[in-house]
């Protein structure tokens, strides 16, 4: 399975699903960890990230037959993930804020205790910067630096032109640097 490309795995999934999930499982092994971490950065909550990631891959499971292969599988997958995260953010805004915060804090503490990799993803300075960024900037930075998508892939996910993507990403980068440097300055002042 390791030797197969994503396209070959997708082709196998189309013929084998739902009875045989071997190829689907391999696609999950390749993409799920990164998709999950991207969701985590975009949504800032373990619970929401896991839910969004699960939903996205369930959509893949049910809609893979409709995937025509006009774009790369990865682009198609991240488009689903991106839209799912936007939807989750909207729902989140409607939810009772205090209750959600309390639940998130407890869950995040528990997961961070269990998984050191997660601990870094949730407490690092980069996470702090991303959490302070606005919705779209946060998603753009995540797609580029956490998911590792190229500029063209991001343009495909967002379904906008390459130059518009470059412009938006550049602005998001500037915002990121600004907040990052502010945090640096803040830390230095505290130390002094």
């Amino acid at each position, binding site marked *: 399975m390791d030797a197969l490309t994503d396209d070959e795995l997708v082709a196998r999934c189309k013929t084998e699903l739902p009875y045989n999930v071997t190829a689907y499982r391999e696609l999950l092994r390749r993409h799920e960890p990164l998709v999950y971490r991207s969701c985590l950065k975009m949504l800032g909550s373990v619970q929401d990230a896991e839910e969004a990631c699960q939903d996205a891959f369930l959509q893949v499971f049910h809609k893979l037959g409709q995937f025509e292969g006009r774009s790369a599988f990865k682009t198609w997958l991240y488009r689903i993930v991106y839209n799912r995260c936007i939807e989750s953010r909207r729902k989140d805004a409607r939810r009772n804020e205090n209750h959600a915060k309390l639940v998130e804090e407890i869950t995040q503490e528990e997961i961070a205790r269990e998984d050191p990799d997660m601990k870094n993803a949730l407490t*690092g300075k980069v996470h702090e910067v991303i959490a302070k960024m606005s919705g779209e900037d946060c998603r753009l930075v995540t797609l580029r630096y956490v998911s590792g998508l190229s500029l063209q892939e991001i343009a495909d996910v967002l379904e906008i032109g390459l130059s518009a993507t470059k412009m938006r990403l550049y602005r998001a980068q500037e915002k990121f640097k600004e907040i990052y440097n502010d945090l640096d300055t803040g830390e230095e002042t505290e130390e002094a």
Partner: protein
Amino acid sequence: MISDAQFLEQDAQILNIFKKEGSSLDSTRVDSEAERVPRDLTIEDLRRIDRIVQKAKFSVVAKHSMSFLFKTIGVGASELALAFIGVAKSANLTAGSVNAEEHENNRVDNE
């Protein structure tokens, strides 16, 4: 308008920050061709993957069960409707025969 050089310079700076903080899972991933090889998965990753596979399988079973249920309900409803029609028809027939009998009795009485 942003030049490619400006963009790439800023891009490299931020990529370095992510690498330094270890937030980018695999620093070689960005713009790399080595995506086919899955990185080492943690136990937590494997658990999540298993949960998704189980949920996907369950959703198929649930979907089939629901469609079977609706089909059964549909068939049941149509059978029931036919039975009602049958009952109504036979009731009409009975009422008809009773009327005919009464009519016959009246005729005999009149004679």
